[in-house]
């Protein structure tokens, strides 16, 4: 993961959870947040993170980098919806699209998605 300044990004999600504890997330928002997470992690512009990109070939994610996304998913970008990523599953994600799908269908509890 890159060493960027992430305080403003993290505050956004913390506030969101505090305001609405019954918040449910839709696919579109999962996609938006996942792109922001990758952009933040790799110090890219969000517009550079397109869903067809390969995590390893295009975005230079090693298996360990993918595994480390668990921290961002569980604790920041999807904390308000109770996401719990599985590292064994994360390292299998091949594209941005694949990662979005895994977060939406596997890591966020069903009761928190629309």
């Amino acid at each position, binding site marked *: 993961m890159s060493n960027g300044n992430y305080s403003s990004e993290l505050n956004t999600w913390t506030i969101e959870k505090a305001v609405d504890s019954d918040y449910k997330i839709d696919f579109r928002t999962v996609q938006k947040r996942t792109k922001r997470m990758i952009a933040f992690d790799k110090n890219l512009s969000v517009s550079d993170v*397109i869903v067809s990109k390969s995590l390893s070939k295009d975005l230079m994610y*090693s298996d360990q980098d993918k595994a480390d996304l668990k*921290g961002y998913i569980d604790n920041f970008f999807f904390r308000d919806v109770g996401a719990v990523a599985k590292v064994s599953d994360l390292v299998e994600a091949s594209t941005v699209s694949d990662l979005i799908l895994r977060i939406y*269908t596997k890591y966020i509890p069903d009761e928190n998605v629309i």
Partner: protein
Amino acid sequence: MRNITIIFVLTITLFFLLSLTSFAGNKPSPDEFQGSNNFLEENELIQFFLAYYDISYYFVHNISPTQSFIDEQGGDIRRAKEKLAVYSYLVELSEKYDGPYAPTVVLAFVKNKTPSEIEEELAVEEEYAGGILLQPYQKEGSKWRFGPVLFRQKVEDWNKDVDDIEGVSVSYADNRLKENRTWSTKGSLSYPIQFFSEFEGDNKESRVSYNYSQKAFVPAINWKYFDLSDDDTKDVEELTFLASFFSSVSHKIDRERNGLSSWRSDFYLSPFYSTDFDFDGDIIGVNFTYEPVIQYGEAFQTSSWHRFSKSLPSTYLFRFIPGLSYSHVFTEGPFIKREENDDSFGITTSFELGLKPFGQKTPWEFKTVYNLFYDFTGEDDGYFNRWDIKLSYWFLEKTGLTLEYTDGDDFLKKDSVDLVTLGLQIRL
């Protein structure tokens, strides 16, 4: 004669496998999916994206949509799964362009170009195909995964991306002036059985590295064959049955302190039985190898193709694989230059350097491999080495033309090798 029959069967099998990859048309075009009007409706878009991005039935089948999502799709579970599989593409398309979607717009989207650029390039066809032979099998919730059948040059490449590996090579030459023919093939057929262990995340801090490990049993058959029709003394035959055990461990690292981004260790323990195609000679043994898979920042990575920098398209491959090797000759054979009951034990090391000068997705690829073996039990100079130099042109994603030069020693049979081959390379 029997050898020729074996090679013939092998070649036919390979070409059968090759035929399962798609040659013609390559990537599907959106206009193949449009209905009676000139636009692609949602369902047509779903089918197009599934085909374009080569999303398998296995992948779709394993998606678990929520009940509310299924209800949104009129209770149709299959449609819900298919839509979810490509939902991110539908969302991104709608963010970029307003509907309805003409084929040109959809093609512009998937190629990340503008519709006007696409209109100018309509004659251009995508180059690569993506045929799939067999899907892996994994029961939902199970930690075991079986298959698929893989054809690669080395069994150690079973878990690497197709882009990062070398395939089975087949070549045939007919020298009509000297009236001799040459057959050559080299490769590995394997069927991995993987086991995923429990993974640990030891605290809730975001920047902590998480450990994970993977294990696998990879039964495989390796073969190497070179047949010169008018001179049997120069023939090469090797048929090796392996039962490889693989273990991969990801190490926890302190990124702030040492700059390493990731470090994984891949271990192989491979008992083997080696013979020739007529089962005349017998060698048994065991190989142990260790491959460090490390990433240092974004500039350096081992074991897979990696760009020199974000601003340069050129990619490189670097692999370093040290190991130990033991073998024992049970029965001498025509292709073994060792005596009966001869033991050999030593250190092996392999350095591999590759270059794709024009980028990851371009067809040209250059590789050089230096293999070293120091035999502790050798009476004379115990050093053996071998160079492999290859230039490949991948005219399809999984099929290429390779010019290969091998010079040095065969470590197992302690025989000299000096070969130049030009042939097909297939990786599945």
